[in-house]
């Protein structure tokens, strides 16, 4: 769409009350003509209320809302229905209309009988309902009803479409088809505003996302801007990792927790166990994920910026010492790394490949072990098979063993030991930390060995 975008909807200090309860706003919002906006947010965040305000299903208690430059409330229902089509979340029709008759009801506002037949047939075709045109609406499955509702709105042929969780009741195939359909309608130049539950589906298809939280805008922008782990943690109380799929981000949840647990988590991050992981070549990715899942916030180093361990650290927003690829670690990175190891109470050495260029972190671990810090070394696969430094790494590992480092078989065992170790730490508040920890492990469903 060329040309300067102009807002089709403009909300100023919009507030909505339902039954005396404040549910939306104050909200300042512009929706450009021709945009494809996904509205997200937890249950009760005001998504549906916002959409109903845009369709005049609810009246604002204060503020203003205009459509195409005119106050929304000044529109007659008929005139608005020629401009805006709505797929509501709630729908019932308990009378025996056929699917085709129901879809044809969408033509009421258009007053163009010559186009009615074609519009209904096209809407049925687009939603894959042509074969069901003669079935009674009362005999449809939930998914078929949902598609019939979408078809009814399509038959309306409006330049703007508002959809409230249109994927409800649809199987995956029809969910994707519906999203594709919105995409192609958008490409025809229509304005699409869709409330979605599925953050990934929204990120995959919408051009722009609006994230609501307790009735106000928590974030708005391109999918990669809105799907920020911090924002999602704040709004949904879910810790997520953000990945990329082509241009679009997608998220996977790590764990979900209540507000109270969050506070404990902050407490633990501030006072809890400081772990440093010596990583590289992707050897530490699993370990990092496991540690993060268990509520730890390890530091990481030294990894090249092309390294998948670096990506993992970024994903979980861990403090990481990085270095440019294909060269020896610069002095600055080594200093930084030494700082992290000094600060750490516990060091884990991941089963990385050692060459002449990355022995320094290992030497740092050895110094730490000699100074009495707990060092875990993941021993599998065997060091001999990972030693590209002509035996130097192998001898460093042997020195680590004699300096009191403990050897574990893999990431899982390392994390288990970390947890046991943490419980027995003496330099941290016993009661709060331990009980909080226990509660968390109970909730996560993971068992941990008795101390």
């Amino acid at each position, binding site marked *: 769409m060329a040309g300067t975008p102009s807002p089709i909807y403009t909300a100023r200090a919009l507030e909505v009350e339902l039954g005396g309860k404040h549910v939306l706003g104050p909200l300042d919002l512009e929706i450009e003509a021709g945009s494809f906006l996904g509205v997200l947010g937890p249950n009760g965040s005001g998504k549906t209320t916002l959409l109903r305000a845009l*369709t*005049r*299903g609810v009246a604002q208690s204060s503020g203003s809302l205009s459509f195409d430059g005119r106050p929304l409330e000044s529109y*007659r*229902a*008929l005139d*608005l*229905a*020629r401009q*805006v*089509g*709505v797929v*509501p979340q709630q*729908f*019932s*029709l*308990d*009378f*025996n*209309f*056929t699917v*085709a*008759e129901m879809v044809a*009801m*969408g033509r*009421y*506002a258009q007053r163009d009988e010559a186009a009615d037949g074609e519009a209904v047939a096209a809407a049925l075709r687009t939603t894959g309902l042509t074969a069901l*045109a*003669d*079935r009674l609406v009362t005999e449809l499955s939930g998914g078929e009803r949902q598609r019939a509702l979408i078809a*009814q709105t399509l038959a*309306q042929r409006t330049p703007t479409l508002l959809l409230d969780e249109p994927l409800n009741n649809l199987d995956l195939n029809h969910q994707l088809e519906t999203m594709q359909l919105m995409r192609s309608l958008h490409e025809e130049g229509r304005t699409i505003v869709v409330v979605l539950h599925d953050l990934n589906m929204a990120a995959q298809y919408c051009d722009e996302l609006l994230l609501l939280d307790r009735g106000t805008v928590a974030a708005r922008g391109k999918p990669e801007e809105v799907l920020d782990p911090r924002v999602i943690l704040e709004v949904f109380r879910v810790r997520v990792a953000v990945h990329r799929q082509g241009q679009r981000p997608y998220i996977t949840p790590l764990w979900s927790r209540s507000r109270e647990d969050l506070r404990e988590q902050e407490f633990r991050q501030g006072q809890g166990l400081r772990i440093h992981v010596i990583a590289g070549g992707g050897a530490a990715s699993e370990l990092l994920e496991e540690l993060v899942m268990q509520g730890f916030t390890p530091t990481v180093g030294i990894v090249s910026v092309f390294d998948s361990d670096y990506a993992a650290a970024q994903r979980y927003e861990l403090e990481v010492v990085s270095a440019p690829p294909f060269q020896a670690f610069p002095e600055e990175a080594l200093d930084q790394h030494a700082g992290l190891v000094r600060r750490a109470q516990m060091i884990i050495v991941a089963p990385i490949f050692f060459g002449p260029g990355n022995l320094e972190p290992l030497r740092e671990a050895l110094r730490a072990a000699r100074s009495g810090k707990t060092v875990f070394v993941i021993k599998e696969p065997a060091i001999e098979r990972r030693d590209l430094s002509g035996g130097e790494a192998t001898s460093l590992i042997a020195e680590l063993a004699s300096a009191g480092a403990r050897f574990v078989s893999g990431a899982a065992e390392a994390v288990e030991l970390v947890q046991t170790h943490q419980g027995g730490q003496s330099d941290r508040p016993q009661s709060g930390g331990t009980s909080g920890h226990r509660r968390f492990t109970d909730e996560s469903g993971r068992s941990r060995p008795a101390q």
Partner: protein
Amino acid sequence: MVAGTRRRRVYRLAMAALVAALIAAVITAAVVGAAGLSLGEAFRALIALFAHGPDATGDFPDWAPALLLNLRLPRIVLALIAGAALSTSGAAFQGVFRNPLAEPYLLGVSAGAALGATIAIIWKPIGSLGVYTLPILAFVGAVLAAFLVYRLATFSGRTGSAALLLAGVAVGSTLTAITSFLMVATERDLHTVVVWLMGGVTTATWMKVYITLPIVGAGFLYMFLMSRRMNLLLMGEERARELGVDGQRTRRHLMVVASLTTAAAVAFTGLVGFIGLMVPHIMRLVVGPDHRRLLPATALFGAFLLLMADTIARTALAPAEIPVGIITAAAGGPFFLYLLRSRRGA
């Protein structure tokens, strides 16, 4: 669009059948009766009446054409009008309330009309205003009751279905209590009141037809013009608005018009029950729920049914007459039960 075509064909067939049945019912109602005419005489008199007017003579008593013209025909026409009015109003109420168990008396029209009629019957000074005292008071009572119910159910500009139903029940029972009290207090007129309440077109005249027909005709026309909107309203006010219909306003207008239409019929026929409930329901099974077809079919079938019921009412125990409301209620009660049971199963 096979079902679309099928439904169109069914509709044409149903309308043809209804028109044929209606004509047959009119002829039957015209020729049977207690006046001592044979069927053949009455039929010949009917033909002669249409061909040559009331002064026609032939192979029938000279008074026969006049009897048909002044007694039987107005009664037939009034039955047709009342039947159509009650059943189309019923269809409108069922659509507006999205409930197949709604009926035209929902807003207290029946109780209001009954109270008005009772006052007209027992309060002689008012009765001296003439033969139209009763219908006028019944009409006024019906309209006032509907207005009262509507007002009571409206909170801050919105009128909910549940509130209307409850207000209808509350106002209805209050007015019925007053009516009952008046009836007991003035035993003398008890019989007259009870017979009126049971409904009938016994005292039909052409004047009554002339008064009722414009109101019912206009009401039907309005409802028919609103039939597409009524279809949309079946999906609820909000969805109707999204598709371009001001649901709240349309509902209000439809309720007013349907209540007026009902009141016009009730004023002259008393409380004929169940026609308004039954007929739209049966027709919905035949021609489908689309009001553009449902309303015309309902009007014809309602007219037919009330005429048949009235014909049975005045011939079954001739020369005595059974109030037509007894016939319709006797048929409607079991049907109502059937409805409730089949809805439970659905």
